[in-house]
C-alpha cells in the first residue's frame, strides 16, 4: 500500500475532565500530512489546534482515535513511546519565554537531545555539534555561555528550532512559532524554517492563527473551530474560494496593507459574538450561534465533512 503520508490522524478525540465539565478540546478530526509538505492548521483560541499538536507529540494521551506515523500506530503518550520515535517527531513551542529552561545555559539546552540520543560520542564532539547548530540558525558561537533570559524572544525561538532539529527529525510540529515576535524577525525565522524544510526534507505541521502567514507558508490548510475541522483544502484553493462561513468571516476581518490584497478578501462578514466556552458547546453545528448563514437544521444536527471539489472538504449544511 504505497502511501506517502508521514502522518495520518483518524477520528482523533481528546477530552479533558475539569471541574466545570468535560472540555472537548479535540472532537473528532481527520487529517493527513504528506512526506515533505507543510500542513497548516489555523484556528483562534479555544479551537484545539495546540492540543492536536501536543497529542501528536505525546504530551497527552488521546481519548479516542488513531495517530499513524509512517504506517506505525503511535497512539500512545510519550512515556510509552520508543526513543527512536522521540527522535523522529519534534515540537517547537509557542512562547519563547517558557520553552527554554531559564536555569540552564544555551549549551546545556542544546546538548540535551544530543546526549539523550547519543548522536555524538564525546564531550568535544558535542561542543562542536552545538556550535554547528547555533551557526545553522545564524546565532553567534559565544551564545553557548548565555542564558535564555539574556537573549531576545526571536533568538530564543531560534534556539528552540535548533534544539528541535538537533536529532534530525522527520516531522516537526510548530505551534505558533512566531506569534509572539515582531514582523522583521518573523520573516527571518519563517525563511529559515522553509530553508530547513527544503534542505533536510522535513515535514511540518504548522499551527498559527495568522491566516496571511499561512497563505505564504503552507501547502495545505485546515481550519479548526471548537475542536472540529471546518474546512480543508490545498492552500491556493482555500484562499481563493473559501466555502465555510467561519473561514469567510475570518478572512474578511484580517487587516491588510494594500488594495490588491483587499480585493482578494471575501465580502465583509461582520463578526459577531464571541467564541463559546469549550465546556458549553452548543448542540448541532458548533458555529451556528455566530453564523450569518444559519439555517434551521444547523442548531439540531452536526454536519459531516463532504468533498465539494477534489481535495476541498467542508463541514457545513450549506453544502450537504
Amino acid at each position: 500500500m504505497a502511501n506517502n503520508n508521514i502522518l495520518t490522524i483518524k477520528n482523533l478525540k481528546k477530552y479533558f475532565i475539569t471541574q466545570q465539565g468535560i472540555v472537548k478540546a479535540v472532537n473528532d478530526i481527520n487529517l493527513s500530512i504528506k512526506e515533505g509538505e507543510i500542513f497548516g492548521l489555523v484556528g483562534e483560541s479555544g479551537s484545539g489546534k495546540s492540543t492536536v499538536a501536543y497529542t501528536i507529540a505525546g504530551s497527552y494521551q488521546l481519548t479516542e482515535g488513531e495517530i499513524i506515523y509512517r504506517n506505525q500506530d503511535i497512539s500512545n503518550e510519550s512515556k510509552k513511546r520508543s526513543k527512536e520515535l522521540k527522535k523522529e517527531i519534534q515540537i517547537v513551542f509557542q512562547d519563547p519565554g517558557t520553552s527554554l529552561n531559564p536555569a540552564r545555559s544555551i549549551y546545556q539546552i542544546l546538548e540535551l537531545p544530543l546526549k539523550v540520543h547519543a548522536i555524538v560520542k564525546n564531550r568535544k564532539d558535542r561542543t562542536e555539534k552545538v556550535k554547528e547548530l547555533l551557526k545553522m540558525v545564524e546565532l553567534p558561537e559565544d551564545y553557548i555561555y548565555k542564558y535564555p533570559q539574556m537573549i531576545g524572544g526571536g533568538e530564543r525561538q531560534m534556539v528552540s528550532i535548533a534544539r528541535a532539529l538537533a536529532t534530525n527529525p522527520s516531522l516537526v510540529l510548530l505551534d505558533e512559532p512566531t506569534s509572539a515576535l515582531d514582523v522583521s524577525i518573523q520573516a527571518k525565522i519563517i525563511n529559515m524554517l522553509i530553508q530547513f524544510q527544503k534542505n533536510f526534507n522535513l515535514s511540518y505541521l504548522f499551527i498559527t492563527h495568522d491566516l496571511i502567514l499561512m497563505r505564504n507558508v503552507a501547502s495545505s490548510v485546515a481550519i479548526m473551530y471548537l475542536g472540529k475541522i471546518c474546512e480543508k483544502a490545498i492552500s491556493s484553493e482555500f484562499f481563493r474560494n473559501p466555502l465555510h462561513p467561519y473561514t469567510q468571516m475570518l478572512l474578511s476581518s484580517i487587516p491588510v496593507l494594500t488594495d490588491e490584497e483587499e480585493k482578494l478578501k471575501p465580502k465583509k462578514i461582520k463578526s459577531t459574538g464571541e467564541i463559546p466556552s469549550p465546556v458549553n458547546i452548543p448542540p448541532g453545528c458548533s458555529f451556528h450561534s455566530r453564523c450569518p448563514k444559519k439555517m434551521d437544521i444547523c442548531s439540531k444536527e452536526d454536519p459531516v465533512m463532504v468533498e465539494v471539489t477534489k481535495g476541498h472538504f467542508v463541514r457545513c449544511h450549506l453544502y450537504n
Partner: protein
Amino acid sequence: MQTPLINIKDLHLEFKVFGGTLKVLDGVNFTVWPKEKVGLIGEASCGKTTTLKSIIKILGMTSARITKGKILFKGRDILKMNKAEIQDVRRKEISMIFQDPTAALNPVFSIGSQLKNIIKYSVGLKENLTRKEIETRAIEALKRVMLPDPERILVSYPIQLSGGMRQRVCIAMALLSNLDLLIADEPGTSLDVTINDQILHLLDNLVKKKNISVILISHALGMIKNITERTYIMYAGSMVEVAKTAEIFINPLHPYSQDLIAAVPKLTGEGISQGIPGHIPDYLNPPPGCRYHPRCRYVMPICKVKNPPFLKINEIHQVACWLFKKEVNQVGK
C-alpha cells in the same frame, strides 16, 4: 497657529544599569494635534512604550534619566510639573490602555468597584456625585462599549470575563473622563482576530463621537492603516519617518520603513521577504550617527558619523535619512 496637543522635542532618555547607561531614546520628535489619530509603528524595544510612558510619567523605573529635550502637553511642560499637577493630567486629560487587559485590571476587586473608584476620583469629588449617580455613570460607560448586561458585569470579577470583554472594560475606564488624549498601547495583540476587529471598530467609533486624539501603538501594520490618519515609524530610539498613513504604506521612503513593510506577509501569497539582516542595536553601545546604518542597504559615509534630523518632503511627510538631503530643505530642531 494651533498648539499641538503633544509636542515632544528632541527627547533623550537613558537608563543607568550595570555596565553603563542604556541610551534608549535618542532625539525623539513627536507631535500630536487635537482631534487627530496618530499611529506609532515600531518593533520590540524600539522605545515606543518608553516614549509614551514618559508623557504621563509612569515609567516606573527610578534609574530613568531624561538628559535633553522637552515634552509639552497643550503647551505646558510635563517634565516641570509636580506630582499633583501630573496626577491631575492623568485623571482628566490623558488616558492609557495597555496591551494585556488581564494585567491592567486588579484581580481582587470587582469591575464595578474599579469603575466607580475612577469616576469618584476623576469627576465625582468635584461634582459631588451621589453613589447612585456614580453607579449610573458606570453602567452608561459599560453600555458605551457595547457590553451586554452591564449590571452583571459590574459585580463580576475580571477573571470571570473573556479577554475581549476585559479589553472593553479597559476602554470604558479610559473613556470615563472628558479626556483630550487616549493612548492605546497594542490594544488588540492578545486577542483573537475577530475580537480584535470588533474592538478596533468600537474604538474608532468612540473616538469619532468624543472627538478626541488617539495615539495608537502597534506592530501590526494592518491595524494602524485602518484607523489612523498620520503615522510615525520608530527605530532604536528615534522617529525615522512620519507621513499620512495612506502615503506611508504606498510610498515609504526611509530604508527601514521599506524593509519593514516589505517583511509583512501578503495575502497575495508571493512568499515572505528575507526580513532585515542584522539585529537591533545594543543600547549600551549604540552605533554612531544614524542607528540604522549597520543594517541599511543604502548606507553612505555620512550615515556613520552624523545622525540625520527630520528632513521635510512635504507638509506632513518627513524622513530622517541622509538620502533625502539634497532634494529638500532641512527642518532643523
